[in-house]
């Protein structure tokens, strides 16, 4: 008989309505043997009582349904974001509150480098918090004139670089005529580069190289550390190419005894034919392991709202911008959804704009007539602008939704004033509508676009505050209980993992978030500040401060 450990805690929130709160949980072989009182659990046989969590609150391990493992990789670059943010090693980087602070932060990183020509990449700049004052190349030249310096914006859609970087890319010259490259009074680029098409060629020179988007071994380990620090035991890596060598590396790394998270990595549709995509997903499915789940597909249908590349229905963007871009042809989308329904593959679709969402709903309606699939759980990711008619369709079609609650906080003011205008901004990421219509719902961070941290995400959905402190969309607020469900069973359901994780009940994985306080009883405005001691994953204990 394997060893039984019984953990006692101040409170255990199980997410199982039959026993919603208990004081003890018994664990054997990495799985939950049972929950209840100590007396109830003693019947399982000899045990060891572990009281280290006596003053803690235990929740089911949190599930991040939309993140990217590259969050782990980005921390190798200098963080210059506006908000305080914790790195994988637990160091809290204070937010850079003005451009001077950004320059200061980069200058410190500059001083720490020996090679005067080595590139210096920074990340998470967001000028909207500096009254939209733009960073110029002259300002970044104060950091260095000998090395290329570049900062990726928090949105991921804009970059600022210094003169050296422009020079290396051959762009420090007059006469450029490209909407993505604003020019200064001197006729030369200001150093701001808008959109991936102009960022990428320069990004290569400032150290954002080809491996940036894929997490390497160290990046994956760092990502998992961030999971522990935010109470996450299952996290998605939502868009990966997953070539053989990456799969081998990820399989090896996640199998290590001290790897603390379950990673669900979805195959990105781009770069292969729809037929190849389906074949690759089938192959990947066979390589799945406990801590590396493979075989799901991610389709990116459109761009982003703040980048004006999302596909919107009439009347389009509030500021009159041209409608956005399709990142997949409707025929290909239809083919992949049909083939996946036919072959039992599981698809998540990125749709930011409501026209993109409508197209997916149309394709699903058609696909489901051809290939009825009673439990497909295809999930609309982001789905930020869906209206109630679309939620009604999702419900009928058996679709799930994973709404971008964090976005509402970080860019809600921008959406209100600029991108979609007050009415639609007020109902964006409509969590209450989703639940009202019975659409299974998760909420997400899209880390690294916003920081990994489901308790923050829950706070955002509950309070719907924007950065400026306005409550935007009172009617779409959800309860704390609904939000906690969304970051556990809700997200697990969209991954078809709700039978394994997401609640604390007999037979499921011993995956716990160990919290310093009770998210159900703190003021809802303080939900984001509930401390995370660490996690238990598969029965293994990971203390954040000891990583």
């Amino acid at each position, binding site marked *: 008989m394997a060893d039984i450990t019984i953990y006692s805690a101040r409170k255990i929130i199980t997410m199982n309505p039959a026993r919603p709160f208990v004081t003890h949980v018994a664990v054997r072989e990495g799985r939950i043997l049972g929950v209840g009182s100590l007396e109830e659990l003693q019947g399982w046989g000899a045990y060891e009582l572990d009281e280290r969590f006596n003053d803690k609150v235990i929740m089911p391990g949190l599930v991040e349904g939309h993140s990217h493992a590259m969050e782990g990789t980005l921390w190798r670059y200098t963080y210059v974001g506006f908000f305080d943010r914790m790195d994988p090693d637990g160091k809290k980087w204070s937010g850079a509150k003005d451009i001077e602070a950004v320059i200061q932060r980069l200058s410190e990183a500059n001083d720490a480098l020996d090679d005067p020509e080595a590139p210096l990449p920074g990340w998470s700049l967001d000028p909207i918090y500096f009254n939209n004052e733009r960073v110029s190349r002259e300002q970044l030249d104060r950091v260095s004139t000998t090395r290329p310096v570049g900062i990726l914006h928090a949105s991921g859609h804009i970059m600022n670089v210094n003169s050296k970087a422009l020079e290396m890319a051959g762009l420090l010259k007059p006469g450029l005529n*490209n909407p993505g490259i604003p020019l200064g009074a001197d006729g030369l680029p200001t150093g701001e580069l808008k959109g991936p*098409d102009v960022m990428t060629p320069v990004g290569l020179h400032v150290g954002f190289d080809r491996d940036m988007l894929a997490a390497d071994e160290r990046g994956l380990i760092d990502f998992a550390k961030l999971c522990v620090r935010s109470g996450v035991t299952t996290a998605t890596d939502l868009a990966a190419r997953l070539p053989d060598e990456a799969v081998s590396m990820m399989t090896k790394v996640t199998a290590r005894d001290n790897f603390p998270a379950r990673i669900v990595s979805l195959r990105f549709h781009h770069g*292969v*034919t729809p037929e190849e995509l389906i074949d690759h997903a089938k192959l990947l499915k066979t390589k799945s392991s406990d801590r590396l789940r493979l075989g799901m597909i991610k389709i990116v249908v459109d761009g982003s709202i703040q980048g004006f590349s999302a596909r919107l229905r009439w009347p389009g963007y509030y500021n009159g911008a041209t409608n956005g871009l399709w990142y997949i042809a409707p025929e290909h989308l239809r083919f992949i959804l049909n083939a996946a329904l036919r072959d039992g593959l599981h698809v998540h679709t990125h749709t930011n704009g409501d026209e993109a969402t409508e197209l997916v709903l149309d394709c699903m309606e058609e696909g489901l007539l051809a290939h009825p699939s009673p439990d497909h759980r295809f999930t609309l990711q982001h789905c930020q602008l869906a209206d109630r008619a679309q939620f009604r369709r999702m419900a009928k079609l058996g679709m799930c939704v994973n709404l971008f609650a964090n976005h509402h906080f970080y860019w809600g003011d921008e959406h209100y004033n600029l991108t979609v205008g007050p009415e639609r901004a007020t109902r964006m990421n409509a969590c209450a509508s989703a639940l009202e219509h019975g659409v299974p719902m998760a909420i997400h961070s899209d880390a690294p676009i916003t920081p990994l941290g489901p308790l923050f995400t829950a706070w955002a959905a509950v309070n719907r505050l924007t950065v400026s402190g306005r409550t935007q969309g009172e009617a779409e607020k959800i309860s704390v209980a609904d939000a906690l469900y969304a970051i556990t069973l809700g997200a697990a359901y969209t991954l078809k993992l709700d039978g394994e994780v997401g609640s604390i009940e007999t037979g499921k994985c011993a995956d716990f978030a160990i919290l310093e306080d009770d998210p159900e009883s703190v003021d809802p405005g303080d939900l984001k500040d509930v401390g995370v001691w660490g996690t238990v994953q598969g029965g293994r204990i990971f203390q954040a401060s000891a990583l």
Partner: protein
Amino acid sequence: MTDGLIQTPVTILGGYLGAGKTTLVNHLLRNADGKRLAILVNDFGDIAIDADLIEAQSDDIISLSGGCVCCSYGNDLFMAMSDLAKMEPAPDLVVLEASGVALPGAIASSVSLLPDYCVEGIVVLADSETVRTRASDKYIGDTILRQLSDADILVMNKADLVDQDARASTLKWLREVSDGCRVIETQHAQVDPQILLLAIGDGTGANYSDAQPAHASQHATKFLEVSEPVEVQEFAEALLNGDPNLVRAKGFVPSHEGGLMTLQITGERIDISAAPAGAKPGLVTISLRNTQTARSA
């Protein structure tokens, strides 16, 4: 502009799914005629290369006998182009097949930022049978229209699959939505390779005079002497206005401001830059013959 830097010309092929981009790529590869082409495709999906032409193949690159290569860029076009720039010797022409939903003008705008490349032109294909239906599709319609309006040259493909009336009305419609773009009618995307490969020369212009069209019936190639200095932009516009069938021109023209300029015309696109040292005045033009030609005067 180029400061003596050798830039590899890039022709961008755009158009929606089924328009014939891949067929055109296959056609070019079979008719490269000693030219070293680098073909960039989103994926290898429908590229059909005779096995005996393949010298080596890896995940992302197929090397062909005769020095042509075919590369798939997947989700990273700029990485692929940056890798391609290291190829020795550089290819004579890069043909970049855009994905079916991409806006070729946006790609051209970005490619023109890369110091190793210059944009030769944007060729957009349209499927005669379906283009108008697609252009009114509620999801994809505006994308189709943006692609068509990005074109320097439009290829109205599968013209054999529609009747005369539909052909004429589609032709008229294509000109309207593209603001008067020059249109080549084809079947099976059999665009005369000369029209796309004219870009390739040794920089002196001399080789153009004896260029023999591979499909003499499709176009007329002429060599123009230009000995007197001209205002180059006006000269180019006059060439285009004077010959509604002109689709390509390349050569060297003395400028009234002094010096010799390289002049390139690809459909509606006019590019003027300083001529390389040793260039001799003269211009090659390619005009479609009437049966293949699609521009009302």
